[in-house]
């Protein structure tokens, strides 16, 4: 490295013009672009195309016109699943955000006990979604799991949490929160540590209490982080699918059917790949709209600066 720095010095000192610096040509990005195009963009095009076909997985897809789409719009389960998807997304966001914000700000303190506890709070991140869902699935058994002992404490006399509509939805929000709050806490912790201490010193001199300092300094300073974390939460809420598949399998009844679940079932259990692609297209539209809305409401520039500041 030292030679490179010497050269820089040489370039700066000397008045002689440096020759045109060689730059990478498009070949450097081509493999990545092709790869991405083939496995991500092509599927995006195909998913829309497939939505106008019927395909059982045997032979080739056959053109079906608007058949799948008219079915989609009259399918009450799709409507219900869309509602459930949005409900779970909003509820998860509304519980995870204040929790991770408060925990993150608290964990940003440099005290020893906070460091130790933060290390404990981090532990769920070491488990995969599948492991977490399967673990809680066992805990929620009404006869032999934790639900049998702890259920009565929270109003489920017979331990029947996951077999009731409200209980199953709450269980999903809880399990997803258990898994992801640590991650968002981490984001808030990092951001809170970057708030200049001098701001708080000034506030203390002004006689501001803890709450006022939090409201006037911490919250506004974390505004961009809230946006980033919320985006990740909302877009990531599509990954509820794994948790739902393993925790409730859509039940009880149709209470926890979400869009990806319907799509998976139509395709890989019903072999109706055309209809599954139609649901998938709806999913792409919902997902993209959500992301764009967040970006619009929060300001794209801020979003980009957070990402580019990495």
């Amino acid at each position, binding site marked *: 490295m030292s030679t490179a720095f010497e050269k820089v010095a040489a370039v700066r000192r000397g008045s002689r013009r440096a020759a045109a610096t060689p730059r990478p040509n498009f070949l450097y990005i081509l493999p990545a672009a092709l790869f991405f195009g083939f496995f991500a963009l092509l599927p995006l095009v195909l998913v829309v195309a497939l939505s106008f076909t019927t395909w*059982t*997985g045997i032979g080739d897809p056959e053109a079906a016109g608007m058949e799948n789409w008219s079915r989609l719009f009259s399918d009450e389960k799709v409507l219900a699943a869309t509602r459930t998807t949005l409900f779970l997304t909003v509820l998860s966001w509304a519980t995870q955000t204040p929790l991770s914000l408060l925990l993150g700000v608290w964990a940003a303190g440099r005290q020893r006990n906070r460091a130790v506890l933060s290390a404990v709070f981090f532990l769920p991140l070491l488990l995969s979604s599948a492991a977490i869902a399967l673990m809680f699935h066992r805990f929620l058994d009404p*006869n032999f799991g934790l639900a049998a002992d702890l259920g009565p404490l929270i109003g489920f006399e017979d331990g*029947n949490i996951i*077999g*009731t509509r409200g209980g199953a939805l709450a269980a999903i929000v809880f399990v997803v929160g258990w898994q992801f709050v640590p991650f968002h806490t981490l984001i808030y912790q990092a951001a809170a540590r970057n708030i200049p201490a001098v701001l708080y010193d000034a506030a203390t001199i002004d006689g501001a209490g803890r709450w006022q300092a939090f409201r006037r300094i911490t919250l506004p300073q974390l505004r961009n982080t809230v946006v980033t974390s919320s985006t990740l939460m909302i877009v990531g809420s599509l990954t509820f699918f794994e948790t739902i598949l393993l925790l409730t399998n*859509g039940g009880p009844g*149709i209470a926890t059917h979400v869009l990806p679940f319907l799509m998976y079932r139509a395709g890989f259990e019903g*072999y109706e790949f055309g209809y599954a692609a139609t649901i998938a297209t709806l999913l792409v539209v919902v997902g993209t709209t959500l992301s764009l809305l967040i970006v619009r409401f929060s300001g794209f520039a801020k979003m980009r600066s957070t990402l580019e500041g990495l």
Partner: protein
Amino acid sequence: MTASMPRRRFLTLAGGGAAFALFGATGCGGEDAADGEFSVWVLQDENVNPVSQASLDRYNGAAEVKGVLQPEVNTGYRDKVHISIGTGQRPDVFFNWGGGSIRTYAREGLLEDLTPHLDGDPAFKNAFLPSVLDAGKIDGKFFGIPMRTMQPVHMFYNTKVFGEVGVEIPETWTQFLDVCEKLKSAGITPVALAGAQSWTELMWIEYLVERIGGAQVFADIAAGTAGAWQNPAIARAIDTTRSLVDSGVFGTNFAAVEWEGGAVQQVFSSGKAAMHLMGSWEYTTQLGSAPEFARDDLAWGPFPVIEDGAGAPDAVVGNPTNYFSVTKDSAHKDAAIAYLKQEMASEAYVDGLIAIGDVPAVADITDRLSGAGNPEFAAFVYDLVAKAPSFQLSWDQAVERELASPMLDAISQVFLGELDAAGFVKANEDAAA
């Protein structure tokens, strides 16, 4: 710098692994039987596979075209069949569950119609129990030869609980309801139900419809007859189910009880519940997980008879058996069929199955079942099916594949009290529309 060495080596190793996986992919298609051999796809099962292999060994001895057993894993087997049957790598003979699992292939002309082979050889046809052979029919034609145990659904009882409460095993619906009341008063859940899986709930609907309306009710539904769901027997079965649920026959937390993982078996064997409606495999499961209970306190019997019902009192539902089907384009079709004819009802094959605890769907084997490890239970299962005028294949297997999930959803909603009879009928009709 010290840290980068092992990491780089790690990445190289991992990269090599990926190349290996990619390489392995190309070799994957080559497992098929070579020319001059026919492939027999079965599920990987350490008990059955040797019996199947022995049957192939017997056949291959004298045969020019020999059969090769190809065991496949259970998970993904349907997908594997589905994918390969649409390509050139299809098997010659393959294991299946009959009904909806092969209906599409049969209708698309991908499977050999076995009707002429059975009709042309009455001895072979009569070697099987007619109700089981018929259960494998699609659009009036035979596409499968029974090849394994029969798995009817029937009642199981915890006799210890029955003794403690002082009730008798019910034979009629009135007796059943009476027993339920007495069990409830004693603080025991009358019936264990793994309501987290809706196919366990389906068993109740199947039997209620069968007992109330007879076998034709569902036969019409499976055939896709217009208005079949409107049959009053369906409405009455749903109403009956709802009143069972409402009166607490299944307890309060059944919707959270799992079958997968054995929670429900434990609810039953531990005496938290006194009865269980399940496939005959429950016996083996209990023998494995609660051997003392299975030996001393487990009893079984047919589903109670509904006194004013139109159904035959002896009719059964469940999984008649598994079948072997032959693909139509198989180059070695004749050899494959010859193998099935020679072996599937042969004494050696049947004895082999009995020895591993199976109850084959073969006629007149009552005395041979004494050689089973569990002769009493095997004889019960065999008699149950042998005297049954009809054996209804589980609905979720029998209907068109894409109709199964909506139907199971609707059943689960009935048990949750979210759908009444009219709603249940509408949900199923909407799905078929």
